[in-house]
């Protein structure tokens, strides 16, 4: 057994979104393989949250240009200055942070560093510090690519290309690096780029979810939790982004409502962040005007998100197939863990997983959503529960097996 695993997510800075739960889920999922787990988040994460979850806070936040998190300090200014001088201030910060972590925790070849959601600066910083050690003295590194922040650079260049080259060189020089990706499509793409096998590691099924927030029982029993006569709730968690299909929701909701004036189904979604809202104010008004549609703020707390899942019978994922050609969906993985069927738009990488696990439907166009929503509304609660129980079972087995193979190989 290896001594310790440092589970790192420098992007884990906001109290909402998937980074906090992702860091927790992955830390728990790999715990059996290590003597100790040290989850490490950004220093921008609220102290209370880090204490609640047992996270250390060691990373600066490198992505103020991409994500609004707390005070940007002078980062933009210094980054601009650094860029003009041919440097990258964020990379320098990341290297400093990783160096400090290596020193503080006396990280050795016995240890492992795990990035469950690879980000550009975190990974680049680690690889740069790694090069200061001989391969035999360096810790094992586990990178899991999800297609979000591995491309995000201050200078606007494609970080994934730079990072891929750096990884390829490190592999060639004998450093122990194990790669995985969230979807088969992304894993295949990375394998082609890097010339090594890349595992597929999905989001782990988390025991907390299974016990308290799932529509299903944690063991393999079928329990019908739904009342067939109550209103059927359809949610679009995380759709508060244009690339996640926000601009398709009006067509979906209004088409459906024309066929369902008596509101047998209610919809709930999140709105765009204020900073992006202006061009879509009238569009959002039209969403808001549809009877039986509830709009939530763009950011909700973990408790609010749990409540949203708890009362959802079906989740819509009309994600942009181009943007999500390689990417997975944390919402889909949350849903399969909780026993909620989803409808996705064909072309997104995670849709193959929806199909494979039988965790919902995949439609080829926005106008088909209406028909499929009706289909789920008209299915018995028992039928949905049994289907989702089986989907979660298969998914959980695959997920656990994939993590085991990735970590323990």
């Amino acid at each position: 057994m290896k001594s310790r695993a440092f589970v790192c997510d420098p992007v884990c800075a906001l109290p909402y979104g998937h980074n906090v739960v992702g860091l927790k889920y992955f830390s728990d999922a790999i715990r059996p393989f290590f003597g100790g787990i040290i989850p490490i988040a950004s220093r921008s994460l609220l102290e209370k949250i880090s204490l609640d979850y047992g996270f250390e806070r060691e990373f600066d936040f490198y992505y103020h240009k991409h994500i609004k998190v707390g005070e940007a300090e002078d980062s933009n200014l210094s980054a601009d200055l650094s860029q003009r001088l041919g440097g990258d201030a964020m990379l320098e910060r990341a290297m400093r942070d990783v160096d400090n972590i290596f020193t503080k925790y006396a990280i050795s070849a016995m240890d492992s560093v795990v990035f469950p959601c690879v980000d550009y600066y975190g990974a680049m910083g680690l690889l740069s510090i790694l090069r200061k050690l001989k391969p035999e003295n360096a810790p094992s590194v586990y990178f899991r690519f999800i297609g979000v922040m591995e491309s995000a650079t201050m200078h606007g260049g494609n970080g994934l290309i730079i990072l891929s080259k750096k990884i390829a060189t490190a592999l060639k020089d004998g450093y122990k690096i194990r790669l995985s990706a969230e979807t088969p499509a992304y894993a295949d793409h990375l394998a082609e780029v890097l010339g090594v096998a890349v595992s597929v590691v999905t989001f782990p099924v988390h025991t907390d979810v299974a016990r308290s927030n799932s529509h299903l029982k944690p063991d393999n029993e079928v329990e019908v939790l739904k009342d067939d006569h109550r209103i059927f709730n359809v949610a679009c968690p995380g759709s508060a982004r244009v690339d996640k299909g926000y601009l398709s929701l009006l067509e979906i909701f209004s088409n459906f409502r024309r066929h369902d004036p008596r509101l047998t189904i209610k919809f709930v979604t999140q709105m765009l962040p204020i900073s992006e809202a202006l061009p879509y104010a009238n569009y959002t008004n039209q969403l808001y005007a549809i009877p039986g549609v509830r709009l939530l703020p763009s950011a909700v707390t973990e408790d609010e998100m749990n409540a949203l899942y708890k009362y959802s019978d079906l989740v819509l994922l009309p994600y942009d197939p181009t943007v999500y050609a390689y990417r997975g969906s944390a919402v889909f993985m949350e849903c399969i863990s909780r026993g909620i069927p989803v409808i996705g738009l064909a072309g997104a990488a995670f849709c193959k997983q929806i199909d494979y696990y039988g965790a919902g439907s995949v439609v080829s166009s926005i106008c088909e959503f209406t028909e499929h929503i009706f289909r789920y509304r008209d299915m018995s609660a028992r039928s949905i529960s049994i289907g989702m129980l089986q989907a979660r079972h298969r998914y959980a087995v695959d997920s656990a097996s994939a993590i085991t193979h990735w970590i323990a190989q």
Partner: protein
Amino acid sequence: MKILFLDHAFHNKTKSSTFFLGLIRDNFNQVDVEYVDPDSLFEIKALQSKRVHDLVILWQLDYLAPVFLSAGYRTVVVPMYDGSANMPFEHWIGMGQASFVNFSRTLHERVIAAGCRSFLVKYYLPPVKEEQLPAFEDLRGILWMRRPQDGLTPKLIQGMIGNQLSALHVHNAPDDEQPRSLDDPQYGASTFKITETRWSRNTNVYLDALANCNVFFAPRLAEGIGMAMLEAFSRGMLVIANDDAVHNEYVSNWVNGILFNKDNASHFVLPLDMARGIAFSGWCGAVSGYQEWLDTRQQLVEFVRGTPEPALAVGPISPAFVTALCDAYMLGGEAYRHFLREHVVDWENRNAIKKIATSLVTLLGIENQSPPIIDEDGLFFGSSPRSVGRKFGLKEYDAFSAHLANDTLGFSVKLSSFNDTNHNAYIVLDCNLIEETKDGWTVLIHVNRGICTRLSLPTLPGEFEIRIPMAGILESDFDVMLSLLNIGSENRAADLPKIKFSSIRIEEDGVIDQ
């Protein structure tokens, strides 16, 4: 908790705030109500005596929020889209410590962008029972012609729907109290039968007509809450409304109602089955929405109760400040914006304001807006360092001084020795038109917020006088505003006349007091 509910005097007539006031009265021990008429010289009684209220609720009088916040009142603002849609971003930032109850999502978004606390709520009226829904054997429309000057007339309806309507009832009771002749082709229509009622003390006239119709045309271009529209939804009528808030926050186009663009309204086909289905969807939404309103009311009350005390209160506010704020507001966007920047927005806390302002400015799309000037000298009056008005002994706060819009300017005069108002006396401004003007300009002269007189500007360069009659004006404080109008030109700002003001004097029965 003792509450002051401050409302626009107009709502004492329309009763559109009654439902909200009732909710507040049901949940708080003591609620005092004061109605304010911004169009007349008003006084806010609650500010003229010792403070007795813990919290103030401003219904549509959002611009008064800085007054109460500065005085330390916990302040709840209920803004209305039709009144506040075009407010500058300083308006919202200036009341950042207030809590907002928003009946418009559009305003809610702006308020949130300004960093304020806001509660978004949708109001609905109790719906009729399903068996009481109107039949749709034919389409019988109703239009309360409140704003014919905005083009909301039978003629517009004819262009959109033509002879698909079997009849249209026009409640010919405009807000300006001047019913229009429906025989006038500017307003009337010929492709459907028109019946007509006019204003009556008996409100049943309108409601009786409503009960005989199944298609409702919203009477205004935009609304704050849209009570008439909500009434139509609750009755199961097909709602057709101009595409602006809050109509477009209640009507999803061709789902539960129909939206049109008044400036580009085109003909549409409306089969009876479709009309029935859309109207039914609107009614179902009203049924659901009314229940949600009932379920939400207690949260709303708790939101009001949880309004924090303002952190930056400075204590009792001078009446001059209140007057100046109201003056600036009445003068229009640029005057009001300038006043807020000068006297209300806390620029010392610049960094925080800047962060908020950036998102709000982006949201409102006014990033590059800057106040225009009237001529090369700026023509600032009042407390401006360059002001020619300083010689008048201006008040500490002078709204007019804070402003110079492209077509409006003003100043205040305090006349301590002038008490007899029966004299034929004038304030005379000596002016000089610097350049020839192409069009005929009119100067409207307002004194103490009422139009006093008007004159036509000369078109050729040279000196001229503006004489402002003082007879009949009881106050010794004169707030004077000059508005330049050029009705013949579409682009007023581009060709404003260049005027210099050289001196001011009082003429009284032929005696000059300079």
